């Protein structure tokens, strides 16, 4: 059974099990097992307590469902399954940044490396088209390209790389430990392949794009097979939801 911590988030160990199930149903089940049990003695105070307990549960379940269900998102739903965006890295201007610097923007998080000439540029080129299709709304989003190759990806190289794709793309690098921690948060493993004779090497890396809402909550995952239409659709919802209240 999945565990829920104080913030209502699933522990990392349970994410795999939960990812394949309907989240609202799961939330109700989880809330139901919380210690709010009726007793045999119908003490008036107890009854009031029980009622407010039930009301709280209903509210919690509703809130959980509204968070993930109110928006008809098309990509793989991540709501409640993955931790909020959190990192402490260096951006492509050489400035120390944390996830809170991007609060207020919908974030598209992608792990890659600049010496990757095929899949990484393809993904970033697709995201550029997505941003173009969003028009003025695109300013409500940022593409965060996180390097999985800090040995070669200096802020300078990252800067020329990401700006070649889209003005709203930011390159992030940092200590191997900080990068590993961030990638582990989203189970986006990466590994360096053996060096070739000339010292060049490739890095295998997770291929999906993780999309966070403007509050830094993980919302959807765009797999490499995801259609551009679906990505535009979901970003449109997430960005305009932010613009409304």
């Amino acid at each position, binding site marked *: 059974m999945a565990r829920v911590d104080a913030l209502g988030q699933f522990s990392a160990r349970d994410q795999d099990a939960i990812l394949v199930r309907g989240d609202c149903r799961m939330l109700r089940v989880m809330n139901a097992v919380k210690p709010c049990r009726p007793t045999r003695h119908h003490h008036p105070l107890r009854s009031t307590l029980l009622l407010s307990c039930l009301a709280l549960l209903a509210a919690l379940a509703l809130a959980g469902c509204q968070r993930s269900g109110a928006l008809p998102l098309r990509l793989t739903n991540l709501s409640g399954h993955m931790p909020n965006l959190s990192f402490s890295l260096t951006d492509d201007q050489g400035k120390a940044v944390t996830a809170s610097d991007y609060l207020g923007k919908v974030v598209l998080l992608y792990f890659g490396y600049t010496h990757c*000439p095929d899949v990484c540029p393809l993904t970033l*080129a697709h995201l550029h088209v997505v941003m173009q299709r969003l028009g003025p709304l695109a300013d409500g989003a940022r593409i965060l390209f996180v390097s999985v190759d800090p040995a070669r990806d200096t802020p300078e190289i990252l800067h*020329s790389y990401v700006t070649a794709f889209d003005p709203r793309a930011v390159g992030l690098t940092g200590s191997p430990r900080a990068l590993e921690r961030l990638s582990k948060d989203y189970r986006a493993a990466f590994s360096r*392949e053996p060096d070739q004779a000339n010292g060049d090497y*490739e890095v295998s890396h*997770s*291929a999906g794009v993780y999309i966070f809402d403007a509050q830094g909550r993980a919302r959807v995952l765009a*797999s490499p097979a995801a259609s551009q239409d679906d990505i535009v659709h979901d970003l449109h919802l997430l960005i305009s939801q932010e613009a409304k209240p």
Partner: protein
Amino acid sequence: MTRTRTSGIASIMRARVWPLAAACLLVGLLPCAAAQATAAQQVHATQAWIRVLPGALPAGAYVTLRNDGDQPVQLTGAKSSSYAQAMLHQSSMSGGMSHMSGIGSLAIPAHGQVVLAPAGYHLMLMHAIAPVVPGTRVRLTLEFSDGSSLPVEFLARPANAIGPDSH
């Protein structure tokens, strides 16, 4: 060939062919006889483009190769005076992870085609000799297992291009 036929016409033809053959021998090792076409002769390249990345970063080259011959051919790699190294590569996905690895050769079936396109087969171009400017053309010489080679002009395109054509 007419060698096995002994009609009068064949004799005349043979008489005409001999001086021609002799001329060829004089010129050198010209392929006089209708020898089997080389891979380079039967393969046609279209949609050839390179995604240029900033600075000294490696680039991916893509092309569609059609084989009009009756025999399959093997692409083994490429050479270019614009890059120090060109490698035949394949990107693949497994378990949500993206990998890239070198392949020794790529078969193009008889009367068939092979597409080198992003996220699949590509030529990885390393260490440009001089900066490659988007909009210009770069010649790559494709190499086949029979030793033949095919020069192809690749269009250099910007990093955020999706394919060979601007749109």
